C-alpha cells in the first residue's frame, strides 16, 4: 500500500495550529483554551500509548493478549456507561448491567463477524479483531448509556404515573412499557441516524481512513457497510439487554416500583 508516511515534525505543524486556536480563544477571553490544550495533549498521549500496545500486540499475535486487551476495553467501557448516567442503579447494578449487556452483544457479534464473515487466519488476528471490537464497543457503549440514562431518569420523573398504573392492577411490564420504548428509542436513534446519513451527509470515519490508507473505494465501502451493520447489531442487542435488565431492577419481587435503588445525582 502506498501510504505517505507521516513524521513527527509534520504532526507538530498541526499541533502548532491547535496552539494557535487556543491562543485566539484565550485572547478573546472565551475560557476554552485550557480544556482545549488538555484534551489535545490527552489525544497525543493516549493514542501514542495505544499505538505502542497495538504494535506489541500485532507482533506477538497471541490469543491471551488479545483477550486481555478486549477485557480491559470492556471494563473501561462499563465504567464509562456508569459515569454517563445521572441516576444510576445502586449496588454495582449500573456497572454490572451495562458491562454484561456490552459483553453479550459486542463480543458475540465481533466473534461471529471474525469467524463467519471476514475469516482472517487465525480468527483472532489482532489487526482485525481489535479495531472491530473497538468500534463495536465505542458505539454500543453510547447506546447502552443513553438508554439506561433515559430509563432511570424517566422512571424517576414519572414515578407517580407508574405507581398509579400499578394501583390499577397493571403488571410492571405494562406500567413501565412506554418508558422502556422511549429508552430503546434513544439508545438506537444515533445508529439509525448514522446509517441514514452515511455517504450522503458524512463520509464515515473508518471508510475515510481506509481510503486514505490506499484501499480501493469499492472495498472500503464494503467494509464500511459490514461495520455499520455489526455496530447496529451490537448496539441493538446491547440496548435491548440493558433496558430489559435495568427496568426489571426498578421493580422488586412484589412488582413495586423501587426508586430507592437509584442514586441521587450530585447536582
Amino acid at each position, binding site marked *: 500500500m502506498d501510504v505517505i508516511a507521516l513524521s513527527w515534525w509534520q504532526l507538530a505543524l498541526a499541533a502548532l495550529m491547535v496552539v494557535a486556536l487556543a491562543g485566539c480563544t484565550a485572547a478573546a477571553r472565551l475560557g476554552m483554551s485550557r480544556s482545549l490544550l488538555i484534551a489535545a495533549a490527552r489525544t497525543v498521549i493516549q493514542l501514542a500509548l495505544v499505538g505502542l500496545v497495538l504494535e506489541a500486540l500485532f507482533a506477538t499475535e497471541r490469543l491471551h493478549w488479545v483477550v486481555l486487551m478486549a477485557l480491559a476495553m470492556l471494563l473501561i467501557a462499563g465504567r464509562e456507561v456508569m459515569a454517563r448516567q445521572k441516576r444510576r442503579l445502586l449496588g454495582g447494578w449500573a456497572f454490572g448491567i451495562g458491562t454484561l449487556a456490552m459483553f453479550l452483544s459486542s463480543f458475540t457479534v465481533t466473534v461471529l463477524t471474525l469467524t463467519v464473515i471476514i475469516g482472517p487466519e487465525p480468527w483472532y488476528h489482532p489487526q482485525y479483531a481489535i479495531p472491530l471490537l473497538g468500534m463495536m464497543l465505542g458505539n454500543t457503549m453510547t447506546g447502552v448509556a443513553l438508554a439506561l440514562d433515559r430509563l432511570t431518569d424517566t422512571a424517576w420523573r414519572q414515578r*407517580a*404515573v407508574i*405507581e*398509579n*398504573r*400499578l*394501583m*390499577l*392492577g*397493571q*403488571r*410492571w411490564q405494562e406500567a413501565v412499557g*412506554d418508558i422502556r420504548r422511549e429508552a430503546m428509542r434513544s439508545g438506537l436513534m444515533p445508529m439509525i441516524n448514522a446509517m441514514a446519513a452515511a455517504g450522503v451527509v458524512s463520509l464515515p470515519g473508518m471508510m475515510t481512513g481506509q481510503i486514505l490508507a490506499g484501499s480501493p473505494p469499492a472495498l472500503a465501502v464494503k467494509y464500511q457497510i459490514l461495520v455499520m451493520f455489526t455496530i447496529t447489531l451490537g448496539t441493538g442487542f446491547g440496548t435491548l439487554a440493558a433496558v430489559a435488565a435495568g427496568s426489571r431492577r426498578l421493580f*422488586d419481587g*412484589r*412488582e*413495586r*416500583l423501587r426508586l430507592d435503588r437509584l442514586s441521587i445525582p450530585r447536582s
Partner: protein
Amino acid sequence: MSVTAPSATDSLRLDGLGIGDLAEINLEVDPGEVHCLSGPSGSGKSRLLRAVADLEPHGGEVWLGSQAQSSLPGHEWRARVMLVPAESHWWADSVAEHFSDAAPADLEALGFGLEVLGWQVSRLSSGEKQRLALLRAVSREPAALLLDEPTANLDDATTRRVEAWLVARIRERGWPVIWVAHDRSQIERVARRHLWIHAGRLVEEEQGAWT
C-alpha cells in the same frame, strides 16, 4: 354490567401491619362496610393505604377473605385491593384510553355524558380528574377499595352526588372500604367506624363523640 357482577363477600383484614411510624396495625373491615381514617397530615394515612395495596415494603400481613397478600403476585393483589390515590395520574392522551369498560349509567351518575370519553386528559379540571379516576378504578371491578380523600377537589353538591354513588356501589358489591376523610359530616354519612391515627396507632372514635 352492574347487575351481573357477583357481589364480593370477603372481608379485608390488616394483621400486624407496620410501615413508617405505624406499627402493629390490626383492623378488620367487613364486606360492604366503610371505615374512615383520619389524622394530621404526615401521620401516615396514605402510607398505610400504600402498604395495604402492597406498593411499599412493609411488615405484617393483609388478608382478603382467606387470601393472603403475599400469596398473590403484586399486580393480582392490587387488581383486587384497589387504591385510588388523592391525586390521579394519566398516561395516555384521551380519557377513553384509560377505560376498558365505562357504563353510561355510571358516567351519568358522576355528572358526565358519554362525550367525556373523547376528551383530552390535559383539558380536565382537577375535580373532573378525581371523579373519572374513581370511575376508572371502580369499573375494573375490584374486591376491596382504598380511597384517599376521594372528594377533596369537589364542591359540596358534587361531593354529595359522588358519595351517594360510591356508597350505593359499595353496598351493592359488598366491598370492604378504607376511606381517608377529614370532613366530619361526610364521615358521619358514610362510615360505620371512624379511626384516628394517634402516636403511631389506630384509635377508635365513637360515633357522635364530636358533636
